[in-house]
């Protein structure tokens, strides 16, 4: 079974081909930080109100450490316990993607914050800005919760592991990041910060895959060991998600203050609750909030993009292509 302790090395016969396909799909979507063009963002920043600038400074300060935390959990916990070499292939790839994201946000902060002192402060936000520190502590708590466990022997240990996995998928990548992306797309809907939005599109695409991978690990474990998924686990997940929504809301209060047209704490609350319900639904658990999505601009993210040639780089191309020259295939 997937969570049986050990370091399985044999790829054939492959037990979980779906994980391997995810690994291959991820490789086809390689992007690099150098492709993102941030040059118009600086002009936008100069035009923003003080309130908007405060929001964006806090937001990038969160980004400065967010992906590093996810990468740490991946190395410290997930890689050790998800015992299938094809799954570990995917996790290796995910680790690389987290590194690209870290590099992207590093470049972003260096570009957005030319003043060295401000820059150092932003990178240290996780230590001294309460709304960012609290989110980080939420993450650390769940990293630590299984850090001492070397082997997942008992059902209790396996449930603890599942909580860690679900936390990173549903609460961190699936809620903290989704909240952060919503701010970016709110700016984008007003024609601002298109460089950040381009990079975010690609980060978002990767994060979506990470989350879906984690959920498919959950699905697999559920199929193999249904008894692990009892009411207690469900209740714990719901509590954890409630806590994450609260932490993200505190962050929203810090970012939005009294609110701006189209972006307020109340709207963010119902957006986060709406997203949280979707995570619960994906896990086959009952909705907690029954909220609706208040952000019309998020609907845009669900729709295929048609990049305008002159203005933006097309982000849809594939890295790996197969086959040989021939003249009689149908097209």
């Amino acid at each position: 079974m997937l969570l049986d302790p050990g370091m399985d090395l044999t790829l054939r016969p492959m037990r979980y081909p779906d994980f391997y396909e995810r690994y291959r799909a991820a490789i086809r979507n390689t992007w690099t930080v150098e492709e993102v063009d941030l040059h118009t963002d600086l002009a936008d920043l100069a035009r923003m109100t003080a309130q908007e600038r405060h929001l964006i400074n806090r937001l990038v300060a969160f980004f400065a450490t967010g992906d590093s935390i996810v990468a740490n959990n991946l190395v410290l916990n997930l890689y050790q316990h998800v015992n299938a070499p094809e799954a570990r292939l995917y996790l290796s790839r995910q680790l690389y993607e987290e590194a690209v994201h870290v590099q992207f946000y590093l470049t972003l902060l260096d570009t957005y914050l030319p003043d060295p002192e401000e820059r150092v402060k932003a990178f240290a936000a996780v230590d001294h800005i309460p709304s960012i520190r609290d989110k980080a502590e939420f993450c650390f708590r769940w990293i630590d919760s299984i850090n001492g466990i070397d082997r997942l022997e008992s059902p209790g240990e396996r449930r603890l592991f599942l909580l860690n996995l679900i936390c990173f998928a549903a609460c961190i990548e699936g809620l903290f990041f989704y909240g952060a992306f919503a701010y970016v797309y709110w700016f984008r809907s007003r024609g601002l910060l298109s460089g950040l939005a381009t990079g975010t599109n690609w980060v978002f695409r990767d994060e979506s895959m990470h989350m879906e991978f984690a959920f498919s690990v959950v699905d697999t474990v559920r199929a193999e060991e249904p008894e692990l998924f009892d009411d207690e686990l469900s209740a714990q997940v719901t509590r954890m998600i409630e806590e994450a929504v609260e932490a993200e809301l505190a962050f929203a209060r810090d970012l939005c203050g009294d609110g701006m047209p189209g972006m307020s704490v109340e709207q963010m609350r119902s957006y986060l609750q709406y997203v949280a319900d979707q995570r619960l639904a994906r896990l086959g658990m009952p909705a907690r909030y029954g909220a609706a999505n208040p952000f019309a601009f998020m609907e845009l993210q669900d729709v295929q993009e048609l990049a305008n040639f002159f203005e933006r780089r097309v982000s849809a191309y594939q890295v790996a292509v197969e086959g040989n020259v021939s003249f009689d295939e149908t097209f």
Partner: protein
Amino acid sequence: MTQIVEGDRRLAIEEAAARVITDPANSRVAARLLAEEIAEEAAGHGVRTFAESVAATHAAGLVQDALAAFVAANAAELDALIADEADERFEYFGLRTVYDRYLLRHPDTRAVLERPQHFFLRVACGLSTTVAEAAELYALMSTLSYLPSSPTLFNSGSRRPQLSSCFLLDSPRDELEAIYDRYGQVARLSKYAGGIGISWTRVRSRGSLIKGTNGHSNGIVPWLRTLDSSVAAVNQGGRRKGAACVYLETWHADIEEFLELRDNTGEDARRTHNLNLANWVPDEFMRRVEADEPWSLFDPKQVPDLTDLYGEAFTRAYRAYEADGRFVRQIPARTLYGRMMRTLAQTGNGWMTFKDAANRTSNQTARPENVIHLSNLCTEILEVTSDAETAVCNLGSINLAAHLRAGDGIDWDRLRATVRTAVRFLDVTIDLGFYPTPEAAAANGRWRPIGLGVMGLADVFFTLRLPFDSPQALALSTRIAEEIALAAYDTSADLAAERGRHPSYDDTRAAGGVLHPDHYGAAGSPRWDAVRAKVAAHGLRNSLMLAIAPTATIASIAGCYECIEPQVSNVFKRETLSGEFLQVNRYLVADLQARGQWTQRVRDDLKRADGSVQHVPGIPEDLKALYRTAWELPQKALIDLAAARQPYIDQSQSLNLFMAEPTIGKLSSMYAYAWKSGLKTTYYLRSRPATRIAQTTVQRVAPDVCSLENPETCEACQ
């Protein structure tokens, strides 16, 4: 109106715009609100009438004295032309584009100083000498029947009226000074919003000896890196960077490094992230690919005349150099072809354009010294270049959707009338335009080419319920191209009688009695005989007249599908510098609304399927066939449509091809077919991302069910 109400209206606009998918009528609602907003903004600077708007833009130093004087002298008549209700034709995205990018703004306050209809009439007046002329062009623009290209829309009547869309520069000569001189030319042309095509074929390849220093050349890549930076550094008026496409002939010994320039892996010092790339492919190469023979790569320093030859002459010279052993190295032609296909799949770039097809039928290549060396940024322009002549083209496109007669097809009389007006005004732009380099002015004065194209072909097919791959669609599309060509040639011959033939007319194939469709045996009808007789009597005012440009922005303004393209998706978003905009196929929605089927469930299904109706339950088969997307149509049909209209397009077409999951096998078959079909050029290969963003606003059908998010692993949807 108070501050609060304005804020409310802005939110109302955004809300309406975001709800376009629920009901496309919201698009017009948002547009109407935006039009009010624009009118108020202009009124803030005292602008209500057209005359007031030109007075205000003139006072702000934005338009020519001559235009201001013309408008002041005819103020009452011109003001009476303005049809404010014409704003109601705009979809939201179109009006928003006009507002964000085209309306003239006060240099300090950034408030607009004209309304959309003022803008159209200002553009028309900038190209006219009488009120009647201005009225004729304005009538076409305000009905969204015809729009000139963006540079003309941006700059008509302005103090520096750069009106041309495309510039094609010959390869720099193989020497340092010539290369640096080209950078300067590119920068000057770029600054005024021109798209750049430039060949690099004459520049020596890597390892070639440099006599002056006794060193070896690093090849073309370092030069192209400099070009890349230079192009990116030039800001075109507003916020858009310059854009350029580099052409290289397939025999150049640096071709393999060239093909890697856009990769996002590998050494960044050998990458150009801003340049577009195109292959300028001789027939001899394609023949050797077919025959699975070797291909020889040369240093242009050793074979300087190859780039100035095409057809038989090229093949003879190429084979002689090869027999002489002058090549740098040889590789199997199929290996190189496979690499070209890989580049297309990985980057969408490395466009396949065909040197011999381009030259063989061009009106400009009657004399052997006049050779086409490249196409332009969007692969629809094919004009001769040399060191002394930078080819230029002025473009405009007819909105076919605006030429439909209620119910029964194209209004051919109106279409012909639109062509006549369009050709006359495109011809005028040649004389009114400001040319940033003497090489561009020289070429345009001599050849006077124009590029009249179309947009909204997909709208026509949807309205008439013709699937893209139906024989009726092929026949109609070909007839449209032929009617436009007939009217364009006829008008240019009239213009030659009125204003004189273009100075290099004697160097053209038309002077010898051969018109473009004759190369294809496609001008046998009496109507062509009549045109041929008129050309024989008067000559032509323009050496080339027809080109199908991509129309990305002007199709947005007109609210129609781009040029000759099929729809990419029934629901998609546009990302532009002013934000993201949801677009939904309003023809599909109208059909489904009529059946009471445009429900939230269907909308979610459609989004989940990335805008495809093929697996949405309850959609009848005829609608499924009609509303296929570009990804679902056989690409052979797109190539067949393009090949059938090629006789009537004397330049070329920006033909995108679409393949969701490209393989080398499918691509090599497709491009070989395109070449054999006689296409002169192709444009992007569009493919799709291998993974995608998780949808936030679509409810999952049920957990654990394979959704279309991951079609590769979903058996159900194969």
